[in-house]
């Protein structure tokens, strides 16, 4: 399996641990990730100019296609952005031809052949739960984890096709493959609030507060996400919220490849768990002690 990896703008400067942990587990699971110099997925500019968004996304799609690769991203917002653009380019031939006109001077053309996938989708469908369970050599002993799906993986479901938009199960199953308990939480499909950060930070934090409190009420000891922005919200923004006494104590958030990585035998340090704002490293205490051979 070979994919072009699309990191988006925030992972390299702010969450290098998301990249490194993703690479570690992909490598161990036999997924080859190829680098390409992509541009922004277009999500941020979408508020200002729709066409600029579509063109940005399309250029990335064309770059991957040009190398004959499918595209994988660990970020749900990039995932949503790219898939949505792909959908629009399929539906609107006028926009497609304008995009290709703009790409022509770089000798690029978007044909619409490639598949855009998210890390979780890759793990669930391409690698498969069975193989993941086999790769888990140091399973957890039932830490209680609240999964947070991320809006743009689920909706609009006809475009994203990731999971059942109302009762998604795939992320829960992936978390449970590590031996953790995915707590029952019907708000796991709702928004983390990060898109409003710095636009209406008050409302943004209210969203985060709700999600954190609901997860805690469901008995969760950790949050688990697979999206750059959800992690920013539940890590960096949560820390700000704690300092402003909006929530009493931290409910640390772990990136899924870190959770899985720990169970595959990588150390918390290798997975970059020391670079979070809220420390989640104590989850290793839930790991079964593996009897020495």
């Amino acid at each position, binding site marked *: 399996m070979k994919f072009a990896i699309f990191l988006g*703008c*925030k992972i*390299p*400067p702010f969450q290098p641990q998301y990249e490194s942990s993703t690479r570690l587990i992909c490598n161990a699971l036999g997924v080859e990730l190829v680098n390409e*110099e*992509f*541009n*922004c997925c277009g999500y*941020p*500019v*979408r*508020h*200002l*100019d*729709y*066409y*600029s968004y*579509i*063109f*940005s996304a399309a*250029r990335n799609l064309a770059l991957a296609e040009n190398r004959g690769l499918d595209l994988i991203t660990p970020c749900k917002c990039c995932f949503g952005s790219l898939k949505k653009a792909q*959908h*629009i380019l399929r*539906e*609107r*031939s*006028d*926009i497609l031809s*304008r995009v290709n006109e*703009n790409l022509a*001077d*770089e000798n690029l053309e978007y044909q619409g052949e490639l598949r855009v996938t998210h890390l979780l989708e890759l793990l669930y469908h391409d690698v498969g739960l069975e193989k993941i369970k086999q790769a888990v050599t140091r399973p957890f002993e039932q830490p209680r984890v609240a999964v947070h799906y991320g*809006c*743009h993986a*689920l*909706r*609009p*479901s006809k475009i994203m096709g990731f999971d059942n*938009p109302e009762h998604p199960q795939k992320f829960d199953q992936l978390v449970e493959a590590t031996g953790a308990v995915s707590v029952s939480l019907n708000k796991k499909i*709702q*928004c983390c*609030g990060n*898109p*409003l950060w*710095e*636009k*209406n930070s008050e*409302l943004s934090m*209210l*969203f985060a507060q709700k999600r954190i409190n609901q997860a805690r009420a469901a008995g969760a000891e950790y949050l688990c996400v697979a999206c750059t922005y959800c992690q920013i919200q539940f890590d960096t923004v949560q820390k700000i919220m704690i300092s402003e006494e909006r929530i009493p104590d931290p409910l640390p958030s772990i990136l899924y490849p870190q959770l899985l990585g720990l169970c595959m035998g990588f150390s918390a340090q290798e997975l970059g768990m020391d670079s979070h704002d809220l420390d989640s490293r104590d989850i290793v205490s839930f790991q079964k002690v593996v009897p020495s051979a």
Partner: protein
Amino acid sequence: MLYTASLYIALLIFSVGCLWRLWTWFTLRVGDSAQNETASRRIVAAVKGILSTLFSGAIFTMIREFVFNVLLQWKILKENPLRWCMHMLIYLGFILLFFLHAIDGTYSHPFFNNFYSTLNPYLSLRNIFGAMVIAGIILAVYRRITIKKLRSLTSPMDKYAIIILAVIMLSGVFLEASKIVSHQSFERMLQEYVHPDLYISDYEEDPYLEALMAYWQEDYGVVFPSIIDVDEEKLEFGQRVNDEFLCSSCHSRPSSAFVSYGTAKLISPAANTLTRFGAEVWLWYIHFLASFIGLAYLPFSKFFHIFSTPVSLVANSVMKQTHDSQPANTATRRAMELDACMHCATCSIHCSVGQIYKTMPNTSILPSEKIIDLKRLASRKEMDSGELQRISEGAYICTSCHRCTDLCPAGINLQDLWFCIREDLARHGFAEPFVQAREKALRLTKAPAQAPLIPYTPEGKGMRDELLLSSQSNTFTHCYRCVTCSNECPVVACFDDPVKALGLLPHQIMHALGLGLRQETLSARMVWDCVTCYACQEACPQGVKVADILYELRNISYRDVKGNSPVKGVQKVTSKGNV
């Protein structure tokens, strides 16, 4: 006379220019934290900072940075080996030429044994260095032409720099070539060093002279007015004369000056004409005047990076990137970084949002141009609101991906500067474009409640045409106001009295669009507090693209901010909503 006068004038302009540039390092204020730092405080802090760094372990970091990134230019090599070749050729070639040629009359003799510019190894070295610079210039021009983005970003300043360099180099080569072929030079040297009454026209009466001339014609490339007959015996004799007259003690054979010698061979058919018109004299004028113009222009041009970039690289290697301990030094570092940019456009070529320049033709989106904007802002240039608006668009389209900063060969902390440009814009009253659009929309006056709706309906038809881009965005006409979208909306769920907080709820916006209430929809807080979670769109039983429509409403408002008409070049959606 002209030489000395122009040299001193150039030196004067150069020194004043350098002092002025240095002064701006302590006076330009970039970002909020720099606003209260006076020049005197900054100078004192800089001196203290430099002294304390020099006598600490950080000196090794600085030396390491100097060796790797100033001398060897590791960062450029990593980014693009071809560009590294180009830069190394020009930079090494030019520096070596400067020491071994430009200042040879004054300074080279004490340092090198038996220094004569006309003797090897100096003669051939000069040509090697010259060839390096010329190859570098060719590569530079090639890159500026073939790399599309670079070509479109090449400013007059970049062109002047290349032109001046090219004129200096080519005039130098042709000058040397014209001297090689010049029989006048030959005669002058003969009269100066052998006998004042020797004339080359008398060669037929003087076998020594004839032999020498034959030898110089064959082996040194001189072109005499009439061709000297040559045979082996004469050449052998000529060589002996060459040694006897001590010509050879000062002149290596010019074939080792391979560039000029090749050029001399090229021009030799026209050599006599060139000599008659005094080519060697006017080429000399061109050569030194171009050099002095370059010298005088240096502090005002991108050439200044030969000083500012190394200083920036070394200073940045020891200063903490974002939270420098001394705000005064941070202010100085940022001002200096503005100068360290040599407009190589590496940042713009790799920029994560650089592609948006194609769809929103605003140069301020591109980092290499944004730094020029910032410089203008910091030097308090008069700017109208249109210009500031363009700058703010560029400043906020940036996604802070840090790629420019990682790649900048001058080691400029560009990301830090991009935060500063936002602060500077905020002081001018320019917020993030999203906020600008929101504030403009929220201020829109709504129709009085009792006013009849019908007058607005034609406007509503226009409104439908404005919603062009997203797939089926005028699906709002399918809405039958079942309120499912508003019930699903997590933003609505945040408020006890959502209508009061949000103006209109999603279903009301869809309905208002149908009625063509432009102001009412744009000024609804709901449009601006949407979290883009698509819960509304997912739930709509009628397939209305609620979230996409809200995006487009924000687009419309931003177009209002920019005073632009709807995006052209895209077909209108047919009235049925499907294409």
